[in-house]
């Protein structure tokens, strides 16, 4: 099964491709394991898990992760979006991410969907694109669920992570990859099923350990390294026993395990490999090597080596994020569709009609309005006639996606239908001009005040009875923890 020769060839000729950016996004919401334990009397683990808000899904979370590393001066030419929990089949979600990022139409937006292994597939594919000379972004996100009271329910974590690969200003070189494919039925989910099923982990533990060691050996061999040359290891996967065994074995050889905050965030599924890359690079010194292992229907590995440029990336300016909030177990169940709220005696929210949504995609997805060339007035949404000076068709594009805003006024709306009442309509004035009536999210209702600073976040507004995901932007408070922006929340 040796693949050493082709891999070596890759390494020799293509070592100048590597990680050129990375970022992560963690929803603000935390579910304590204690709250699930209170409900069911089960003996779950201690800690918390990250929970996608009622207005988040893998696609919206992927946007939030990716926008934290995309540079519009040098946008990716290829985008891979990986998720094991896609909101659509047949229709792409990568194109939604692409549209929300405001990427050029020439950027290929491609999906790696369905299998948990897709998370590592996206990293490998993006790296391969970089090797071929194209800037490529891999972003992965899952919303992890389980039947109420199950281990999956509290062990999962909703996280998104992005890694960009390219050939310039490399933060970490990719030295080698290695794989071992294994047809095994340890975990599966039928397309129409809400929750995955798994088999006794002990039946497949050794198969996974063997696959991991094979994939690691291939990568090490291709890079001309031994285990002792590895400073950091990160093992991803939903197979807990195999992860523990592989991690233990690698740590015995002297490597340190990357801390991916699993006790706080949970196990992120598809996003875990990219999340480990980011967490690992956050702690790595120049010259240190990282070994990322993903266990899912076999094993995939990637070896990276940090460069001196890494420090520059870590010190870059990053906006602030709101503090973490605890979600009650009851609301968590509603958000996951396990409980149905009483239907409000209000009409269903509007679903996007296909042609208006396509016509207005710059606005709907990239939050791009217009700015009057004559008087500078910003219009959100874009318009053809200036509200101030009446100039007609004198508009240029103006996006407030990445601009800070201030709350002008607000209400907490207890009557509106919401899965997270009260809904919080706010009027926001943006730096650089423009005003928008929008929803506030990720905020403690009791803490909202006029003058609060906010930034915009891509959200799922609603889902129509036909299954149409309605995406648009909401405001979220700007918190105090500057250093943890890329995490999305305070640590």
């Amino acid at each position, binding site marked *: 099964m040796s693949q050493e020769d082709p891999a070596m060839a890759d390494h020799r000729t293509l070592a100048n491709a590597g990680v050129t950016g990375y970022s992560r996004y963690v929803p603000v919401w935390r579910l304590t394991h204690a709250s699930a334990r209170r409900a069911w009397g089960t003996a779950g683990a201690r800690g918390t898990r990250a929970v996608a808000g009622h207005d988040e899904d893998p696609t919206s979370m992927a946007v939030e992760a990716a926008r934290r590393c995309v540079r519009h001066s040098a946008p990716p030419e290829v985008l891979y979006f990986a998720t094991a929990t896609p909101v659509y089949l047949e229709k792409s979600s990568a194109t939604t991410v692409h549209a929300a990022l405001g990427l050029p139409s020439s950027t290929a937006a491609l999906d790696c969907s369905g299998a948990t292994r897709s998370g590592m597939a996206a990293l490998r594919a993006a790296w391969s694109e970089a090797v071929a000379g194209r800037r490529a972004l891999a972003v992965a996100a899952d919303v992890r669920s389980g039947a109420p009271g199950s281990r999956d329910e509290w062990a999962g974590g909703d996280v998104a992570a992005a890694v960009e690969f390219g050939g310039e200003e490399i933060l970490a070189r990719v030295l080698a990859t290695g794989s071992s494919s294994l047809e095994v039925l340890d975990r599966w989910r039928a397309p129409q099923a809400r929750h995955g099923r798994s088999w006794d982990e002990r039946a497949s533990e050794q198969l996974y350990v063997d696959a991991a060691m094979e994939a690691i050996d291939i990568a090490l061999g291709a890079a001309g390294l031994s285990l002792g040359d590895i400073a950091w290891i990160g093992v991803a996967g939903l197979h807990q026993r195999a992860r523990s065994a592989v991690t233990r074995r690698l740590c015995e050889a002297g490597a340190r395990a990357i801390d991916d905050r699993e006790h706080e965030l949970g196990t992120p599924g598809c996003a875990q490999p990219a999340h480990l890359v980011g967490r690992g690079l956050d702690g790595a010194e120049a010259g240190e090597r990282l070994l990322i292992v993903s266990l899912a229907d076999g094993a995939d590995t990637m070896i990276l080596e940090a460069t001196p440029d890494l420090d520059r990336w870590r010190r870059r300016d990053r906006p602030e994020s709101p503090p973490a909030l605890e979600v009650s177990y009851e609301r968590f169940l509603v958000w996951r569709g396990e409980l149905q709220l009483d239907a409000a*005696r209000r*009409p269903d929210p509007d679903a*996007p*009609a296909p042609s208006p949504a396509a016509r207005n995609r710059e606005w*709907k997805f990239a939050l791009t309005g217009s700015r009057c060339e004559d008087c500078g007035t910003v219009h959100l949404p874009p318009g053809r006639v200036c509200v101030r000076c009446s100039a007609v068709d004198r508009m240029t594009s103006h996006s407030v996606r990445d601009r800070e805003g201030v709350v002008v006024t607000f*209400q907490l709306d207890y009557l509106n239908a919401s899965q997270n009442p009260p809904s919080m*309509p706010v*009027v926001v004035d943006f730096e650089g001009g423009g005003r928008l009536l929008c929803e506030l999210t990720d905020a403690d209702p009791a803490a909202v005040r*006029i003058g609060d600073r906010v930034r915009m976040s891509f959200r799922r507004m609603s889902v129509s009875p036909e299954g149409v995901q309605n995406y648009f932007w909401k405001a979220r408070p700007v918190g105090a923890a500057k250093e943890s922006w890329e995490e999305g929340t305070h640590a």
Partner: protein
Amino acid sequence: MRDRVAIISMACTPFGDHWDKSAADLLVDAATETFAAVGLSPQDVDAYWLGTKGSGDTGKLLSQALRLADKPVTRVENVCATGSDAFRNACLAVASGEVDIAMAIGVEKLKDSGYSGLTRSNPPNDATGISMTAPAAFGMLAPAYAQRYGLDLASLRQVLTRLAWKNYANGAANPRAQYQTVPSPEAIEHSPRVTDLLRIHDCSGVADGAAAAIVVRAEDAARYVRDPLYVKALSFVVGNGEGLVRDHTEFSSIPEVVRSAQQAYDAAGVGEPRRDLALAEVHDCFTPTELVLMEDLGFSRRGEGWRDVLAGDFDRDGALPVNPDGGLKSFGHPIGASGLRMLYECWLQLRSQAPPERQIDLQGRTMGLTQNLGGPPGDCVSFVAIVGTQLSENQT
């Protein structure tokens, strides 16, 4: 427009839960009473304007309800100012000379929907607008007002409670109003929460109802009634959306109201509204709206409206009675009818035809104002009418 058109008859059904009546039934009730009061038949009216937000799509709702023979009926819709705009168009037709006798009639049948509050249905769109209720949309005025004038939230609450209490008290004296009881200030403040600031008692009710007016040229009015009501001004500002587009636009005021009021005062020759008007019927859809309207209509100085409310200046026996009939608070808001219901109170009060127990002391004042708002702050239309019992001295 001043003094060119006169109202010669009006009627208004009781507003409330008309479970046993359709929109057509309510139209028949309002129209029949309006005709009877002045001795006209449906065939005497040359043209009709029907205001309804959603109880019918075309003029056929009226022509078929009344079985009109070969008459034009125009259906008018302009959000919550629908009834006022129907009235305005009827007046314009008469003023043009093309129509001798016109009827404006408005109706809304809201209780059949089963929804809480008012709702709207939008044409196919990109679904980037947010879902919010009307109390939240109008409630946004309150924190902006409090912030602007340094009012703490407890004092603001007191002002809102006073406004609700006043309108409940006025409505309880008016058998046409939906609500006939006056909750205590404590009951108002402890009623179910709708937004962080607003309680259910801060909101206008949801009601069914209809109201109608017949208008003729001013010089013809004497043929029908001794004491017509002359139309002094009709102004209608359909907002361009500026308040939700331009940053730094003040949110403690509704600019469309300010401009429509100024246009109307100029047209009617109202110098000081608080001195010159005998009463005002304003769009108190939610208590913060009425507070802001007191300043936007020039009844109070900027930042002083809340003090004037607490001082009772706008009570039925105050300096300028506002919503002496009970307002939207006590009547509810059958959208197509509300603007005409406001005019109906002017019709009664200015001609001293209100029941003695609630007839206001006109103190020689002859003019009244109606202000009808449609859509929330920043996304609204504002109508202002001034009507009066006397022709101006300098009329040509």
